[in-house]
């Protein structure tokens, strides 16, 4: 075991993947010499050499498209997009090719590859650097979408994603990269893609979130527990394929649910969760499902971030609302 923050755990995971599987190669802008804009690939070029870790031209679509070709030809590429806001030029490759080749070729060709995308706000960054549009990836049939919120999960899910026979969009919460440390095994290990993680057992209300918003969600849960409310906390950590059974079982137990995400509300993934809950757990519900989300605005610049991001207070208030008679 070693104490690692989420960024270090990802670096450790990439190191483990490169060390254990010759087919793994890394591609991205500035990931070699500088270790990437967030230093997630720090030291890996030195350790594994320029045939495994590639600094590429500034061409997101080209990077993903080339990695796609490599994956079809038997490699296990892991590409880095610098920020979600810079990943959209590659969206065409993801939705039109990466996600489809298994279907298009009736299973003859597959694209086992990982697209790492740092996402989310709260770091006072420039425009386009705080995007949280995970729903546009979760909406694509044929890819999986994974979002770790803790160092342990980050490493374990990343190694699962690299092993996965299908393409995985791996979303990394920027705000959480260096927020907390926890013990992470230095050995190779995986965390299953799919099943939700029940972080805290409770009986009165279920709080569901993922990525960076888990921080505020956990804090809200702790505050509510102090007031004698028993809170169940779910870290979704896989948006696609969605473990709807795990969500439904929890809501059947608590009868109340609050979904928290920083992405804009309309068309956000919270809507999907609310739909699943009403389809499959309506008669267990004691109150309407609440959504605590970012508003339908452009993610603001630094001075307005606090106006945008869901706060502990808002999550707490939403949970209390479900408990009103």
């Amino acid at each position: 075991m070693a104490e690692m923050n989420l960024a270090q755990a990802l670096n450790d995971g990439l190191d483990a993947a490169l060390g254990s599987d010759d087919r793994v190669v890394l591609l991205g802008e500035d990931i070699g010499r500088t270790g990437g804009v967030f230093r997630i690939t720090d030291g890996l070029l030195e350790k594994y050499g320029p045939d495994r870790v590639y600094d590429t031209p500034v061409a997101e679509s080209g990077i993903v498209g080339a990695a796609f070709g490599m994956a079809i030809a038997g490699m296990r590429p892991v590409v880095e997009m610098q920020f979600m806001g810079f990943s959209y030029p590659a969206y065409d490759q993801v939705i039109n090719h990466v996600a489809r080749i298994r279907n298009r070729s009736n299973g003859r060709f597959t694209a086992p590859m990982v697209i790492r995308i740092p996402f989310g706000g709260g770091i006072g960054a420039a425009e386009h650097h705080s995007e949280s549009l995970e729903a546009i990836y979760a909406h694509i049939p044929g890819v999986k979408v994974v979002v770790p919120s803790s160092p342990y999960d980050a490493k374990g899910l990343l190694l699962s994603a690299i092993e996965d026979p299908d393409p995985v969009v791996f979303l990394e919460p920027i705000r959480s990269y260096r927020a907390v440390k926890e013990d992470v095994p230095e050995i190779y290990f995986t965390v299953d893609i799919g099943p939700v993680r029940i972080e805290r057992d409770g009986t009165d209300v279920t709080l569901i979130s993922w990525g960076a918003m888990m921080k505020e969600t956990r804090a809200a849960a702790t505050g509510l527990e102090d007031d004698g409310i028993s809170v169940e906390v779910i870290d979704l950590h896989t948006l696609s394929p969605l473990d709807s059974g795990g969500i439904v079982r929890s809501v059947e137990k608590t009868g109340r649910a609050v979904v928290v995400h920083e992405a804009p509300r309309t068309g956000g993934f919270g809507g999907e969760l609310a739909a699943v809950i009403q389809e499959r757990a309506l008669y267990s519900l004691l109150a309407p499902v609440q959504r605590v989300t970012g508003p339908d605005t452009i993610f603001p610049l630094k001075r307005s971030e606090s106006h945008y991001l869901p706060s502990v207070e808002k999550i707490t208030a939403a949970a209390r609302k479900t408990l009103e008679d």
Partner: protein
Amino acid sequence: MRTLISPDGTVNDRLPLTLGQMKDLYADMVEARAYDRKSIAMQKQGRLATYAPFEGQEAAQIGAAAALNPDDWVAGTYRDAALMWRAGYSWRNLVAGRTGDERGGHPPEGVNVLPPSITVGGHMIHAVGLSWAEMLNRTGRIALTSFGDGATSEGDFHEAMNIAAVFQTPTVFLCQNNGFAISYPRSEQTRSETIAGKAAAYGMPGVEVDGNDVAAVFVTVTEAVDRARAGGGPTLIEAVTYRIGPHTTSDDPGRYRTEDKTEEWRRRDPLLRVQNLFESAGEWSPEWSEEIERRSVERIEEAVTEAEALPQPTRSEMFHRMYAEITDPLLNQLGEGSDG
């Protein structure tokens, strides 16, 4: 522009192919044309979805594919059936794909031909990645990607060309400049004098070849393939040709071009040219020609019969080909259907 055989069949300089090789290339072009004609007919009968004819481009496609090894990669488009077939794809699966059956996207094991890209331009970079992997694994395999003149205006063309050149991947870029991107003429598509000339900006060789001369295409692609295999990096080849037919069976070329121009190109027909070559060499035999045509039609009919005899795809197959292992949400949705 490189031409080895003029439209009247005279050989410029020296032909580095044997008569036997020329006969094989001719026979393959005849077979490809039989497929094209059959597909158009089937589309009119409602047996195929929209079809993109390639008449006039047989030399560019057959000549290029003939220059490849059987396990080289090919990433082409919806108009590349002749190229894909000559590279190892089956007519049956090409027909199946056009009848609207995903099983048509499955080439035989060992044949490294991707199912055709329907969106324009996004697939060129795939050939870069495919050949990059082969370069890393030192297999000696290369990748050829085929695209039209219109695709060179896509940003994807730039990214693919640039990345291939930067990493010196063993990639052959084959542009079939057939004069039109649906209705938009090549002259308006780019101010560049030639498409081949764009290669210079990327630091790779660019070659302009007569795309209706199967021998010239074969020789030019062979040179690019050999250079790629030897570690010499990528090449852009512009095969100058002409789309005799419409963009697709839904298109009306009368809206954007005159019949005179098309007639002029008919006189430069790639099959006629080889026929003229054989005639001037005293090697033309109408009986032989009729025989290969008859056999080609037979093979295409057989492929059509097989494709149309494929059992109706089940609903379940649609769900099961999404991931290596079907996911829970898909399993639930599959369960919502009637015939499971």
